[in-house]
């Protein structure tokens, strides 16, 4: 994609764990266009958070390139790298650890403003902070400026985290489970605030979540990528992914998710997995990593050969041998 703001090219991340190598992210390639909104979903340990950190420049991948505006991030000059770091901000999951407990909201927000010259003195910083608090919906700002994080609710803290990310005029925000620890009734207004940022300020989003329902709502006009054991196994525009999931894992996920609608959830078609156990990252299965659990795996193929990404329909990729068979025809006619 020519107007890509961030690209991951064959990114792999390994960690040492008790003398063994854990492959947290395995050959992930992803290109995110300016103004786009992409969501990574997957279960815990699938590598989605690590991928988010790699995108934000907080982790250097073991292999592969991270490209920001056409430049390899880890080959940048210190000055360029700093610029990139600031342009890509991250909003964390836990509202109780994302703000420094001993610093007031004013201190938290003024530090980046003053440091990077977005405000020349405290007066300018204060004006700017008021503006930011309004944007994230903490009104009236005066009520929040001198508070400590523990004096705010979880939802309000997450809003401060977003305001902090906005201090440096980012072009890209990685939202790592940013709303999953917030109560249901408040979650939505937070999401709507984030959507507003995208529309008003043109911020590009990488939204990371384990909640497919939330992903569907938030990125209906974007793309969803499904991760399993460190691999990006399927990525597609949201409506197509939800309606025509191609990877067996995505299908299993969609069929397994309980829905907040009794008739819908009780009449869902169930896909029965062959195994309930998730393989260890220390010892990944050969071939397709999902094959030990896959309900329709083909012996001799799935357990031997790792599948290659296949464009099932336009912009809809799946890394699955069976996707080739079930929808290859459609792909051919596109």
């Amino acid at each position, binding site marked *: 994609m020519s107007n890509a703001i961030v690209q991951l090219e064959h990114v792999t991340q390994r960690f040492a764990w008790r003398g063994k190598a854990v492959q947290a992210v395995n050959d992930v390639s992803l290109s995110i266009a300016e103004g786009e909104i992409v969501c990574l979903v997957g*279960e*815990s340990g699938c590598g989605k958070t690590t991928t988010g950190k790699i995108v934000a420049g907080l982790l250097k991948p073991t292999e592969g390139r991270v490209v920001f505006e056409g430049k390899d991030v880890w080959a940048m000059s210190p000055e360029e790298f700093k610029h990139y770091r600031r342009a890509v901000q991250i909003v964390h999951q836990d509202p109780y650890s994302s703000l420094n407990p001993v610093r007031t909201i004013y201190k938290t927000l003024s530090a980046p403003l003053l440091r990077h010259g977005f405000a020349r003195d405290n007066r300018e910083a204060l004006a700017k902070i008021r503006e930011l608090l309004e944007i994230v919906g903490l009104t009236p700002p005066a009520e929040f400026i001198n508070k400590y994080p523990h004096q705010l*609710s*979880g*939802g309000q803290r997450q809003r401060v985290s977003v305001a902090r990310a906005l201090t440096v005029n980012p072009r890209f925000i990685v939202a790592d489970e940013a709303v999953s620890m917030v*109560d*249901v*009734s*408040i*979650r*939505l*207004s937070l999401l*709507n605030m984030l959507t507003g940022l995208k529309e008003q300020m043109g911020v590009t989003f990488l939204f990371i979540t*384990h909640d*497919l*329902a*939330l992903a*569907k*709502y938030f990125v*209906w006009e974007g793309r969803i990528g499904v991760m399993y054991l460190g691999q990006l196994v399927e990525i597609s525009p949201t*409506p197509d992914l*939800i309606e025509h999931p191609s990877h067996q894992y995505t299908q*299993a*996920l*969609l069929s*397994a*998710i*309980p*829905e*907040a*609608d*009794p*008739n*819908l*959830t*009780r009449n*869902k078609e*169930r896909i029965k*997995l062959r195994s*309930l*156990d*998730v393989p260890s990252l220390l010892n990944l299965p050969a071939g397709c990593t999902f094959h030990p659990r896959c309900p329709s795996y083909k012996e001799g193929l799935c357990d031997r050969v790792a599948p290659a990404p296949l464009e099932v329909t336009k912009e809809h990729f799946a890394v699955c041998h069976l996707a080739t068979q079930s929808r290859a025809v459609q792909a051919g006619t596109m």
Partner: protein
Amino acid sequence: MPREREQLTKSCEILSVEDLWVEYRSPRGTVKAVRGVSFDLHKEETLALIGESGSGKTTLGMALIRMTPKSGSVPRGRIIYRRDGEMYDVLGLDKEALRKFHWQECAMVFQSSLNAFNPVLRIWDHFHDTARAHGRVSQQALRERAMHLFKLVQLDPERVIDAFPHELSGGMRQRVLLALGLLLDPQILLLDEPTTALDILTQRTVIDLLRRLREELGFSLIFVSHDLSLAAELANRVATMYAGKIVELGDVHDIFYRPRHPYTLGLIKAVPTVTGAFRELASIPGSPPDLVDLPSGCKFQERCPFADERCRKEEPELEGMGANHSVACFKWRQVSLEKEAAHA
């Protein structure tokens, strides 16, 4: 509810909570965590207690089995438990009777399945200790019973029974806890956030398992959760909690398709579905009230689009309306009109 009907249903109620209050001392004042809750649990039904953080749902769950922490107290209320024609107040049990009650009548399975185990004891030791504490000591019979339960919860008995807790995955531990809870054949199983820490595919297994076990073994299930979809999936009846009170109680279909309380309606409108049609969602404005310093009148009134003068002054009580559906709201007629309008 008409009088005759009440007489009829009484026989199959195994637990009746009457005007239960739970309070905590805190440096800031008294936290009124549960305020006058009443409900019945029927034989072989699944009841979901749904609410957000601070709604009092977990406090209520703990109070049902007298596990309220030291800083808490139960100033008022009765918890009537029935079995084989006998009945007694759980709040009046002495220590020994309470211990018996905990496993033989009402077993609980907690949220964090790792912390529930002693890390240096094997799974078998946990079963053995529990059984011995209740007088069953025939090793052979116990082992057979444990093996049988493991099979029921879809675990490989040989592999699990001599394992240490850390050797099992989160989903497996959750299932072991379920088996342990069922060891003494309780009438009631109480679960606190049974699937919260689990992955989606594991969640699914636990849900299906719970449903099957309940049907096969015929116990009653109460679970506490913030997750609406779990209630939709598993419950026969749902109780919505807000600021320490049950604000709506009814059949799962009534709650989801014909909610009468604006808070229940708000929750349902705020939660998206995956495979359902894409629809616009709406959030509930504001945030839950401070349990130390509660506002006057209805506790939801500040966030409620229907609130009027009366709601600000008077707190509505839970009142029955038609079969098995009750709500604590003065404006429930308007709420149901709104819901129908949204459908049309």
